[in-house]
Each structure stands twice: as C-alpha cells, then as structure tokens.
C-alpha cells in the first residue's frame, strides 16, 4: 500500500548545523548570543512544561549528524516501507516563540536552506516543509515566495502555538503567498512559549502529560478562526493541515460551529457554507496521536462524523515518544488506502502518483 508519512521529523544533533546558512547580525546573535541551553541549542522561548524523559524515543540515539538519517532510514523508512516522508523539522517551528521577528525569520531561512541542502538530496522519499515565523506575516510571505517554487517543497509549516488565532486577517499575507505558490499551510503542535503565551485556556496547567493531552485546545481555536474569518472563501483551493493535535475533538467543534452559524451567520456575511463544509473541503488532520478509547467503535463513530475517510492523513511523528506505528494504526480497514496515502497525495500535489495508480 502506498504510504505517505505526513509528520516525519528530521532531527539534528546540534543547531550549529545552521551556522553556514546564516550571516551578519543574525549569525553573530546565533553564535555568540544568549540561547535556551548550551551551544547547539536552538533559540526559542521554551514552554513551561518539561517532558520528564525528553520527548525523543530512547531507541533513537544519534551521536554524529549523519546518524539522524541512518537511524531514521533503518528504524522507520525501510522498516515500515514508507514511500513518502514529509519532513517537518523539529525545533525550527519554535522560532514562532521569539519576540524579535527578524531573528525568527533569519533562523527559519537558515533552516529551510539547510533542509533543502542537507536532507532533501539524501533520500528520494523526502519532501520538504518550509518553516516560517508567523509573527511577521510579511517576512513569512517573502520566505514562502523565495523557496515556495522548489520542486520538492510541499508545504509551509508553523507551530500551532501562536500569538493570535490563525484566521485573523493579520496572517492573511501568509495565505496569499501559499495560494500563489500552490502550497498547503500546515501547523504542527509546538511553539507554546515566549510570545505565544496562551496555549492553554484558563492559564498554564501543571504536568507535562496532562498538558500534552489538552494542547489541541489551541488547534480548535485556529480551526474556528480560519473558517469564521473566511480564509477558505478568499483562497478556496488552500488546504490547511493540522498536525499532531488529535482528531476526536473535531466533530464536536464542528457541530458547535454549525449550530452557532445557523443562528448568527450575519456576523460573517462572507461565509457561504456551513463551517463543517469548509472543514471537509479545506482542512486535513494528521492521525498521530490517534485517540485510543477502550471501545474502538466509539472512536470510529467520531471519525466517521468528521468524514475521516477523506480528511485524515497518516502521520507517525517519528521519532517522538508518542510515535504511531503504521502497522497498528486503528482506523477502519476500508479507509486504509486513502488515509495512509491517497488523501495526502490530494493535498501535496507536487508528489507524483505512483505509476500503477496514475494508470488507473
């Protein structure tokens, strides 16, 4: 079965790999300036919850930079016959936490150049995400236009932690650029520190595991905001991918949005369809970490309510602690072909369809 992994983290051992891709002031800041940790740490505002064990799998222990690919190849790509891995970086999305948008932008540009230079040529299965710092949408849009036409770049990526809901017109220059380049806009769990000070409603929760379970709150906000602010009316072909934010909450939020819209559509006269219809046409959810109820039917009824057959895309989150093993992915068996690969090919249109499929 043709398999696309929509969340495969290309790690580094040390953020110093970015040094050759930086220059001038921001290189000085990167090399000599303060950062969150020792030399090799990526500058970012850290979240107030520390994973008690560190959040990489303990059977993934790279020592040299090249180990990162070698281990990924052996323990993930080859082992599970992954046909396409969408690289989602790791720390670079944390640039969204920095107050200085120019430094954040310089870090993202350096990462994108490094990713294209170092990672993409390593394996034909790799397709890249360009990371942008959304706190300055004009700079983000310029970066999207700078690299967005690279033939192996397939999406624009930010953290789901943000300074404001992503539907806000403040961010629309980003969607304008995505639409112009024909790229989806993706948000990945992360960026819950620094200027993104409100990842949890009512204030910061206490423990890591507790917090990790409720971080999808922020994604709910973004989903509602993108729909309500008419992003999909302005850019009807834009796809938004929500990565690692859970999925079982989606029907509940859509039901609530639809109900409210029926009463109060006059607040947003630019909308022409029910919120749930925009979700189904324009938003895709990555599966990992797929909720695990004791009774699988409870999950499947929920997935059906969000048209999961067409809105879900497989993701492993390699090599993180809550990794989903594709051979144990608990979705309805008749959906597997779509969820494991075909839905992603509809979103990432630069990835060629396999010859056998194209002939059909």
């Amino acid at each position, binding site marked *: 079965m043709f398999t696309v992994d929509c969340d495969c983290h290309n790690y580094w051992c040390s953020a110093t790999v970015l040094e050759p891709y930086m220059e001038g002031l921001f290189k000085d800041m990167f090399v000599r300036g303060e950062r969150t940790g020792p030399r090799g740490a990526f500058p970012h505002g850290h979240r107030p919850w520390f994973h008690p064990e560190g959040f990489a799998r303990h059977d993934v222990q790279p020592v040299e930079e090249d180990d990162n690919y070698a281990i990924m190849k052996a323990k993930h790509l080859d082992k599970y016959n992954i046909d396409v891995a969408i690289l989602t970086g790791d720390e670079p999305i944390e640039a969204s936490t920095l107050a200085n948008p120019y430094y954040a932008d310089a870090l993202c540009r350096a990462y994108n150049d490094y990713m294209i230079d170092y990672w993409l040529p390593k394996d034909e299965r790799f397709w890249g995400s360009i990371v942008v710092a959304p706190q300055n949408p004009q700079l983000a849009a310029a970066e999207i236009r700078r690299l967005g036409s690279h033939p192996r770049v397939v999406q624009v990526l930010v953290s789901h932690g943000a300074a404001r809901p992503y539907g806000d017109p403040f961010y629309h220059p980003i969607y304008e650029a995505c639409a112009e380049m024909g790229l989806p806009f993706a948000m990945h769990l992360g960026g819950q520190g620094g200027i993104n000070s409100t990842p949890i409603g009512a204030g910061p929760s206490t423990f890591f595991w507790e917090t990790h379970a409720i971080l999808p709150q922020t994604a709910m906000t973004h989903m509602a905001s993108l729909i309500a602010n008419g992003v999909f009316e302005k850019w009807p072909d834009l796809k938004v991918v929500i990565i690692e934010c859970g999925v079982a909450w989606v029907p509940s939020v859509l039901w609530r949005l639809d109900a409210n819209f029926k009463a109060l559509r006059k*607040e947003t*006269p630019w909308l022409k369809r029910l919120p749930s219809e925009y979700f189904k046409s324009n938003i895709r959810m990555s599966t990992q970490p797929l909720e695990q109820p004791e009774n699988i039917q409870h999950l499947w009824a929920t997935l059906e309510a969000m048209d999961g057959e067409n809105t879900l895309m497989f993701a492993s989150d390699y090599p993180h602690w809550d990794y989903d093993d594709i051979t144990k992915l608990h979705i309805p068996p008749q959906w597997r072909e779509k969820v494991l690969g075909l839905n992603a090919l509809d979103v990432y249109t630069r990835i060629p369809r396999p010859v056998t499929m194209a002939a059909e």
Partner: protein
Amino acid sequence: MAEKHFACKAEQVSAEKATIVSVNNLSVGVFKLDDGFHALLNVCPHKGAALCEGPQCGTTRETDKEEFVYDKAGELVRCAWHGWEFDIRTGEFLVDPKIRARSFPVTVEDDDLFVHI
C-alpha cells in the same frame, strides 16, 4: 381546503413586530410589511419555540469580502429562542431554505385581517 379565519384588526398590527393571535387553536404571528400583511405559524421548525415573538429585523447580505451590507430590514423574523432567521414572506430559513416556517395567506376586508389555514 383552506378556511378563512378572522385574525385581528389591521390597526393592531405594526411594522415593528408581529401581533400574535390565536386562530383555529393555532398561535399565529401577523406581520406588516411594505407589500401588505403576512402570517407565520408561531412555531419554529427548529425546536418549536415561539418563532414570531422574536425580533422583526434585517440581516447582513452574503458578500464576497469583509463588508457588512444590511439587507431585508424588517423583512425577517429571528426566532425568539435560537435566533434562526426566517423570511417573513416565504417562511424560508436563510441558512437552509429547505427548512421553512409554515406561512399562511392573509386577506384584508375593510379593517379586518383574515388568515387562511
């Protein structure tokens, strides 16, 4: 076949809000618009609330950009409970015209309004 029932006097109906009358054991809202009188069953097809006791108002017209064009002023009734907007003339729910409030023809004889049910 529809039967004619006396509803109320024309002077009892303002252009501001519905006059609720009891006709043939049904609660009916009688409205006054520019083109004459209209009547809706005072039961919302959504949850059965007192539809016609909500505000008679207008709403924003569907647009292609971020603008607010007030439209249909006084031609809609917003259900008293959940606020669904219905076109007083046709009974159509704006978000989904397949859903309709039940409407009745109104005739005027001198000062008397009759609802045909």
